Each structure stands twice: as structure tokens, then as C-alpha cells.
């Protein structure tokens, strides 16, 4: 059993009761089919051969009606139980998957891509539904119902029972034989289909570019051609794949025919063996189609199994990965007049293999305002990622007031940091929710103060619902400057002693820029601050500038001295000055 199948089986153990209920109810309905067939055979036989009229048949007719009503009731509750089975599995799996993604952290999420992960959490989990709600119950029934029918038919009509017995196992057997080959082909077709859909989406996304290049006609031709090729190759696969269902159909149909013909021959007395009466013969004939029905149903559910296995592959990859152990660290935050931060020969490389920091040694004293500067890829963000513990050093250590950061309790440590990323995320929800992120019981007055300090009160008051305006995806759009201010308000509300600030590079208009600059100054006041700086104005106000390149510190000092040294910093800063 593969790890995927064993994972699917493990989930089954969480839903044993509802799954058993679904199978049990459905099996009960199958058993009632036998009673129903028996009553019908009895009624028809009595009318034809005993000349019975309606009056004498009422008890059986009422019995038949009662069976119908009970069976329908069972149908309803089977559906309910199957649904609850699937929901329990889905809810558990979604919870576990999301928890795992959180444990793997934001670097992993941006590595894989939010779109991919979101579809895994949504559609990937939904694909489990049919497996638990339909495939599993049907698989159990495909074994139980035919077995029960066989047991009932055997003592009454051994010949028909033998026909059932000899064809029934052939159906799943052929299904598996042909299915295995078809499964492989099928997967290839699905990949092609995904490719085709992707191509269309790509063309639509790039429609403006295609238009600029005057290439839309040609692309339409390509799409038509790919669609056509896809149809041809899929149909050649399906011609084979559908053979499996044809075999199934063939056995079911021919067995019914054989059973009917031979019952007829024995009834008329042409055959020496297996004498039978009409009532039994009719009873067996009534059961025949229902004998094969669960097997046929299972055939149509087969792709639910494939879908679930496909989806589970994606899930298991995450759920069975060991989580980084972090809860052991329980050291409280070390006391001090502020934080002194020591990077001691810290190296970091990301999972992609890209080396990011190389033996970095850096000391930040309490209350210092330190600007990090360097070209793209220099390792500036890595310093933040390490301090936020989105990543841990590969070698070397980071100490906070002398205590190893990895030994400090994580949540407690993060409570002491206010972080403003370069492109702050605005969550779908009210502005208030966005400001009070992780701090949902914040006092109104504190929220107001934070908004005020961030210089956001003016635009907030102009919004239709003020702080209760819904923003983010599908909400009110915010400008770049407004988003910066909301992120600042978040940081003000947190009121943490350590501030990590990644300055925005996107251009804002001048008024917005100086307004945000002032708010940042207010926020930085009295805290230890690390700023990834993109503006001369910011670096000029820093106590110290550290210039990074390729994961190492190449220079440090204050603006004027660094300019004078004429190194990388001068090149970065001078780029805009010397060109005039």
C-alpha cells in the first residue's frame, strides 16, 4: 500500500461510525430488494397460476408498499450518513493542512505560490468528498449485496446462482485489468487537458500582449489546433477505456439473458435438470439486474477513487512531512534596557539552494537605528527573516541580550517585534480587523491613537464606513500610500521595542512620501530599529548604515563617511547624483 492509500485509510478510521451507518443502511435497502422481489413474484404468480384477484392479494400489496416506503427512507438516511462521513474527513484534513502550512511558514508559502496552495486547501480537499461519500460505500456494497443475493438464490436455483457467481468476479477483474492500463492513459490525458486549459488561460492573460504584437489570429489558430489534437488523442484513449465498461455491461446483459432463457427452458420442461417453478424463476429474474447494479455503480465511481488519490498525493506530501520542532524553546525574553542583537557568523541558504547570508557578524545595540543597504539579493530581507524566525540560521547563532534566539519562546519573542514589510498585505475584512491583526481585543482608544500616529486618520475618516469599511480582496481598494499607513498603524498598535521596517520602493507622490517618513520617525522614536532603506532621506537619519553585498557586510558607517570611502555605498547613492 502506498503512503497515499494508507493515508486515505487512516482517515477512514476517524469516520468509522458514519461510514458503517451509510454502508449498513444501504445494505439494508439491498436486503429489502430481496423481500420486494419475493412479494412481487408471489403476487404475479398468484394472479397468473392461481387466478387470484386483488382482494386476496391486499396483504401482499400493502407489504410491498411498506417495503417501498422503508427503502426510500433508507435512501435518504444513507445519503445523510455518507455526507457526514465526507464532511468530517474534509474538515479535519483542511484544518490539518492549513496548520501545517502555517508551521512551514511564509517563506515556503511564497516559494510554492499562494495560488497553488489555495487550490490545494480548497479543491484538493473537496476531491476527497466523492471518495468517502460515494466510492467507499459503493465498494462495500459491491461486495455485500451480490453476496446476499447469491446466498438467497443458491438453494432455490443453483444454475442461476452459478451464472451469477461466475460472472460477478469477472466484472471487477476486467475492470481492474483494463482500468490499470486506462488509468495510466487517463492520467496522461488529464495532464494534456490541464496543458490545454493552461494554454487558453495563458492566451487570455496575455491577450493585451498578443494584441500589441498583432498575434491574436495566430494564437486562435494554435488553440484550435491543440484542442483538435487533444480531442483526437483522448478519443483514441477513450475507445479503449470504454471497453472496460462495455465488458461490464456485456457480462451484466448476457447473464440476465442467459438466466432468463434457461429459466424459461426449465419451466417448459425442455431440460432434464434443475426443475423450477414460475414463482422462483420470476423471483430470480427480478433480482438479476439488481445483482449487477452495485458492481456497475462501483465502475462509475472508479474515477472518484483516482481523483481522491491524485488529490491525496498533494496533501500527503505536506501532512506527512515532519514539522520543524520549535515548541521546546521556552526560555523567557531576557531582561535588559532594550534588545541587544548579536549575529555571530550566521549563514543562511534557502531551500532552493540559493545562499543568502555568509558568515554574517553584526551587532545592534539597544535603541540603535540601523539602516541596511545593498543591491537586490544582498541578504537584507534574510536578516529580517531570521529575526522574525521565518527561517533559522544554517550555522552560527543569533543572540538576544546574550540568549540564543532559538531557545526563546517563539510567540513571546514575536510579541516584541513590530514588522512592516515592503508590500504589506491587506486582509479582506474591515480596516479595524487589519489594524488589530493578532490583537483582536485592542481598546478602541488605542486603535484610534495608532491610526492617528500613523497619519491615517484623515483618509480613514473620509471612507464611507470609517474604520468599519471593508477592504482587501473584493473590498474597497486602497492606494499604495494608504496601505503603508495601515501597516504603520498596525506597528504602532503593537507598541513593540524592536521595529523591523522594510521601506517601500514603489514611488508615491511627494506629499505622501514625506507624511509617511514623519510617521516612521515617530514610530522609530525610543525603539531599536532596523530599516531596509531605499531612500537617501532614510539613511541620513540612521545612526549607522550597514552595506550588504552577496550575503556579506562590505561597509558600515554613516552616510558622509561612506560616501567619502567611495565604495559600493557611494556607487548606490551616487548613481542618482553623478548622472546629472
Amino acid at each position, binding site marked *: 500500500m502506498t503512503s497515499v492509500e494508507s493515508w486515505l485509510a487512516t482517515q477512514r478510521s476517524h469516520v468509522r461510525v458514519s461510514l458503517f451507518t451509510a454502508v449498513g443502511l444501504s445494505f439494508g435497502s439491498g436486503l429489502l430488494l430481496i423481500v420486494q422481489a419475493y412479494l412481487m413474484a408471489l403476487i404475479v404468480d398468484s394472479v397468473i397460476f392461481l387466478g387470484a384477484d386483488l382482494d386476496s392479494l391486499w396483504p401482499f400489496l400493502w407489504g410491498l408498499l411498506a417495503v417501498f416506503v422503508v427503502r426510500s427512507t433508507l435512501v435518504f438516511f444513507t445519503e445523510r450518513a455518507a455526507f457526514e462521513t465526507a464532511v468530517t474527513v474534509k474538515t479535519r484534513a483542511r484544518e490539518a493542512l492549513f496548520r501545517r502550512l502555517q508551521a512551514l511558514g511564509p517563506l515556503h508559502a511564497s516559494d510554492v505560490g499562494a495560488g497553488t496552495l489555495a487550490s490545494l486547501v480548497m479543491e484538493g480537499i473537496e476531491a476527497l468528498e466523492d471518495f468517502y461519500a460515494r466510492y467507499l460505500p459503493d465498494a462495500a456494497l459491491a461486495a455485500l449485496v451480490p453476496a446476499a443475493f447469491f446466498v438467497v438464490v443458491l438453494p432455490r436455483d443453483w444454475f442461476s446462482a452459478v451464472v451469477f457467481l461466475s460472472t460477478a468476479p469477472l466484472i471487477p477483474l476486467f475492470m481492474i485489468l483494463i482500468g490499470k492500463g486506462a488509468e495510466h492513459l487517463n492520467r496522461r490525458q488529464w495532464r494534456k487537458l490541464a496543458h490545454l486549459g493552461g494554454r487558453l488561460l495563458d492566451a487570455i492573460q496575455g491577450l493585451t500582449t498578443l494584441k500589441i504584437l498583432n498575434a491574436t489570429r495566430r*494564437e486562435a489558430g494554435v488553440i484550435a489546433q491543440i484542442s483538435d489534437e487533444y480531442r483526437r488523442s483522448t478519443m483514441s484513449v477513450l475507445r479503449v477505456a470504454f471497453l472496460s465498461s462495455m465488458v461490464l455491461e456485456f457480462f451484466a446483459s448476457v447473464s440476465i439473458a442467459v438466466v432468463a432463457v434457461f429459466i424459461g427452458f426449465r419451466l*417448459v420442461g425442455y431440460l432434464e435438470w434443475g426443475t423450477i417453478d414460475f414463482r422462483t*424463476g420470476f423471483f430470480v*429474474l427480478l433480482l438479476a439486474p439488481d445483482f449487477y447494479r452495485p458492481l456497475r455503480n462501483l465502475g462509475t465511481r472508479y474515477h472518484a477513487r483516482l481523483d481522491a488519490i491524485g488529490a491525496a498525493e498533494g496533501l500527503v506530501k505536506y501532512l506527512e512531512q515532519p514539522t520543524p520542532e520549535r515548541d521546546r524553546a521556552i526560555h523567557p525574553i531576557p531582561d535588559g534596557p532594550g534588545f541587544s542583537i548579536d549575529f555571530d557568523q550566521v549563514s543562511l541558504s534557502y531551500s532552493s539552494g540559493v545562499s543568502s547570508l555568509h558568515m554574517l557578524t553584526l551587532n545592534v545595540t539597544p535603541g540603535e537605528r540601523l539602516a541596511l543597504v545593498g543591491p537586490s539579493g544582498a541578504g537584507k530581507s534574510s536578516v529580517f527573516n531570521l529575526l522574525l524566525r521565518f527561517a533559522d540560521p544554517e550555522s552560527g547563532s543569533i543572540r538576544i541580550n546574550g540568549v540564543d534566539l532559538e531557545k526563546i519562546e517563539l510567540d513571546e519573542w514575536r510579541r516584541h517585534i513590530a*514588522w512592516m*514589510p515592503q508590500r504589506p*498585505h491587506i486582509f479582506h475584512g474591515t480596516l479595524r480587523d487589519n489594524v488589530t491583526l493578532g490583537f483582536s481585543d485592542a481598546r478602541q482608544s488605542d486603535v484610534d491613537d495608532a491610526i492617528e500616529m500613523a497619519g491615517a486618520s484623515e483618509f480613514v475618516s473620509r471612507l464611507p464606513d470609517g474604520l468599519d469599511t471593508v477592504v482587501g480582496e473584493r473590498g474597497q481598494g486602497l492606494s499604495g500610500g494608504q496601505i503603508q499607513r495601515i501597516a504603520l498603524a498596525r506597528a504602532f498598535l503593537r507598541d513593540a521595542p524592536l521595529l523591523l521596517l522594510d521601506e517601500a520602493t514603489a514611488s508615491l507622490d511627494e506629499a505622501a512620501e514625506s507624511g509617511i517618513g514623519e510617521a516612521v520617525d515617530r514610530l522609530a522614536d525610543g525603539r531599536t530599529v532596523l530599516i531596509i532603506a531605499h*531612500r537617501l532621506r532614510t539613511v541620513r537619519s540612521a545612526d549607522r548604515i550597514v552595506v550588504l553585498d552577496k550575503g556579506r557586510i562590505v561597509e558600515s558607517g554613516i552616510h558622509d563617511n561612506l560616501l567619502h570611502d567611495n565604495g559600493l555605498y557611494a556607487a548606490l547613492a551616487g548613481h542618482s547624483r553623478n548622472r546629472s
Partner: protein
Amino acid sequence: MKTLGRLLVLGKGYAWWMVFGLFASLVTLVANLGLMAVSGWFIASMAIAGATGAAINYFTPAALIRAFAMLRTGGRYVDRLATHEATFRILGGLRLWFFDHLEPLAPARLQLARGGDLLSRIRADIDSLENFYARLLVPTAVAILGIAATGLFLQFYDPVLALVAVLGLLFAGFAVPYASWRLGARIGARRVEYDADLRTAIVDGIQGMGEIAAFGGEAQARRRIAELDARSVNAQRYLSKVRGLSEAVSSLAANITLWVGLLVAIPLVRTASLDGAELAMIALFLLAAFESVFPLPQAFALLGSTLTAARRLFEIVDSPLPVLDPANPTVHVSRYDLEFDDVGFSYAAGGNRALKRLSFRVNEGERIAILGSSGSGKTTIVNLLLRFWEYQAGNIRLGGCEIRDFRADDVRSRIAVVSQHSHLFNTTIRENLRIAVPDADQETLERACRIAGIHETITAKPNGYDTLVGEGGIRLSGGEARRLVVARAILRDTPVLVLDEPTEGLDSPTAASLMSMLDKATRGRTVLLITHKAADLAHVDRIVMLEAGTVTDTGTHQELLHRNPAYASLHDTLNTPVQA
């Protein structure tokens, strides 16, 4: 109803495939009915013959039974092949149809498409249209014909019997699915909404994972997702109840039809207007007849979502064209200067004016930079120039001719654009280049790539020009992607070149080398550079400063540096752009 009609018209080209599928389904249905009915009749007749000792021709019915069994097998196979063939053809056709209709609308009418959301919805919508023909139209037609055939057959024996069967079939096939559709419609729509909310929360939770972790909101985010999941599950539970109820009532309706059928038929045997064998036949016939309406509940369930999908697509397709081609277009133009003269434009009627009395001129062979912050109207200039939108006031002239007197394609064929939004398609480097000029030979491609300074980079890759660039060019670095776009623009060899923020998102050394490469590559052409970065202005002849949709100043770099403080302040940036 109108939507339904338009869908039918769209499917007209595939009518024969659908008729073929319908015919095969019908054959299968009749074969199944025949198999069961003849079997019932056969064994009862044989039993009667056995009991009375009368002679009986058993060859014909026995042969019929075998024939129906084979027909049912083959019919199902052909049915599935035909339906799939039709589906693929329709799907391919619909994709092209939609692409063709979308093309003139881009990008003006697709502006509302935030992110990939609308685009992936379009794809899902097109896929769900497939349902309309294969799972809705054909099964409904089969059911109607099946019901008619059943009624016709039974009225040979007794009109009341026929009426009972037809009413039962209509009830199970149409009334029950309709009722369950009505019961589920409101909650079903709500469920879609709930799922969208859930998805938003999940995407938020992944995209904003960094902030959630840093601000200690992880448990809160999980709770939010769990709440939204539970809300969706409750809606699903209700829908599951409706589904269970509808299945139960449908199966009860089928059984009660059989029951009432017996009540009608049994007295007929007593009065000898029906013989015994016919009673057995009718009992089995009634059981099998309901197979024709089994697919209808699913068809009804799909109806709502399919119509919604169709309505959304039609809505996009029906959007008014943003730009109309003139009846007698200008074809020739002898020189390539550009002039904006008092141009006024707003995106929405009565909305904010994006451009106000905008005037500037670019002489043939001159390089002009348009400098402005985001929101100043820079991109609007490109949009109007490329005929993506219609300007409302003033004149835009190319070589002295009003651009709205050209066909839009003819304008675009004279202008090449390099922008940060230029799309790279998920295919090879070579194909991405050839999209611009499909018949370009390798030598031509290499020449363009050499000018763009990317030839060496490409040949250094293991697969050279056959390297796949990934979705949106993700496998290329920012600099490589931009240079590839430049190479593509150079390939087109147009007299006018628009560079729309060509260095956005690149770090400063990369940006600087791209700009100096562009300087060499574009000599002698009319160039319009659009930027907000002071560093890009090294190689232009004149700078037009844009603010709030109007020109505030024009001059050379030196002139502006001396007289315009806003211009001077733009040079206060430290060039340490976005870290990858």
C-alpha cells in the same frame, strides 16, 4: 430563456453529433426495456406452456433476448463515444468562440478582472458549458423520447396503465428534480458565496502568512477559516438533505408507479383483457422504464450553474466594443511623428478625468520621456495610443493623421511596446519571440537577441532557445525577462517604440545596462519612454513632466534640474530596489 436559446444556437454546429449520441442512448434504453420485458414475458409464457402442455415457439423470444442484450452492450459503448466526441468538439469550439469575442475587448473591458480570479472563472465557466450539451440537453431529450415510447407501448395494452406510467415518469423525472432545484437554489447560491469567502480567507491566510505569524494571529486565522468552513458545511448539509430527499422521493415514485400499475393490471388479467405472460412483462417493463429519467436530477442540478456560467460569459461577450474601426480607414502614413493635442479622457463616463487637455509632441526620430508618479496618467497615454480605449476630446496624430482614422490593428502594427506588463507565454524562448514574427528564422531571432544583450545568456542555458520560460516567464530572472521582451519588440522592427516603465522591478545595475542597451537599439526611431524613475532619463532628448493628467513642465534634464524643484527632488533615491 434567452440564455438557453443562445446556448442552443451556439451548439448548432454540433447538432449532428448530439443527434448521433441521442440516437445511441435511445437504442440502449430501448434495448434495456426490451431485454427485461421480453425476459418476463418469455419465462411466464414458458411456464404457462409447461403447465398446459401447449406448444410454444421459443426461438424468436430467446433470440430477441440475446439480441437486446448485445444491443444494450454495444449501444452504451457507442453512446459514450459519441457523447464524448461531441463534448470535445463543442468545448474546442466554445473556447475559440470566446477567445474571438474577447479579443476586441482587451484590455478595456477586462479591467475589472482583478488578478487571475476572473480569468480562471472564465475557464471554469467555459468548462461548465460543456455540461449543457452532454449532460443536460441530450439526457433530457432521451428522457422525453423514452417517456413517450413507454406511453405508446403501454397504451397498446391499456390506456390507464399508459397514463399511470407516463405520470409516474414525469413526476420522478421532472417534478421532483424541479422541486429539489427550487428548494436548493437559494442555499446553493449562498454556498457559492460562502466558498468564495472561504477561499478569500485561505488566500489571505497564505499571502499574509508573514504578517499573521509576526503579529501572532495564527490561531485567529485558523479560527476564521474554521468558522467559514463550518458555514459552508452547513449550507452543504442542507443541500445534502435536499438531495437525499429528492433521491428518496424519486425512487418511491418509481416504485409506487409499479404498485399502481399492478393494481390496474391485475383486474385486467381477471377480465382476460391481459394475459398472464403480459402481466409479467409489464411488471418488469415498469421497473426498467425509470432508467430513462435517472440522469435528469443531475441535469437539473447542473442547469442553474450552467446558466449562470453562460450568462456571465455572454455578459462579457456582449460588452460594447471599446474602439470601433472606421469604415474607410487611412492606410498610408509617410512619417512617424506623434502628437497629443488637447486630449481629454476618462475611463468611466462622468468619472475622474485621467487626462485633461494633454498636449505634447514627439518628432520623428526623437526620444521623449514622460515622467510622472503613479496615477498621473502615464499608462493612459499608452492605452490611447494603442487604441485600447477611445479618447473623448482632442486629437492624437500619427504622422499627421488622426489615429482613430486608422484600423486599430494598423496602428498597433507600427508601434512596438516594451512594458513591465508584457506577457511571456508559458512556452520556449524561441516561441515567445516568434509570437511577434512567426516566420522569423533563427538568424533573425539571434540578431534581435544580440541587440537586446540576451543572446549569450540564452545560449548559456542547457536548452538554449528551447528553454521553457515557465508561467509568466517565472523561470527567467527579472532582467532576462525584460530583455526578452525587448528582443521581441526589436524583432517587429516598427518605426515607433513605446517603453512603458521598462526598468520597473529591476535592480539598478540591471536597469542601467538595459537602458543603455535600449539607447543603442532604438536609435533613429521615434521613442516614447514612460517612467517615474529619474535614473531612466539618461538617454532622452526631452522630458515631459506629467501630473494629474496634464503636462506641468517640459525641457531637457539640465533645464528642469535648475528650474523645477519637484524634478530635482526625484533624484533623491538610493538605488537599492526590490529584493528578490
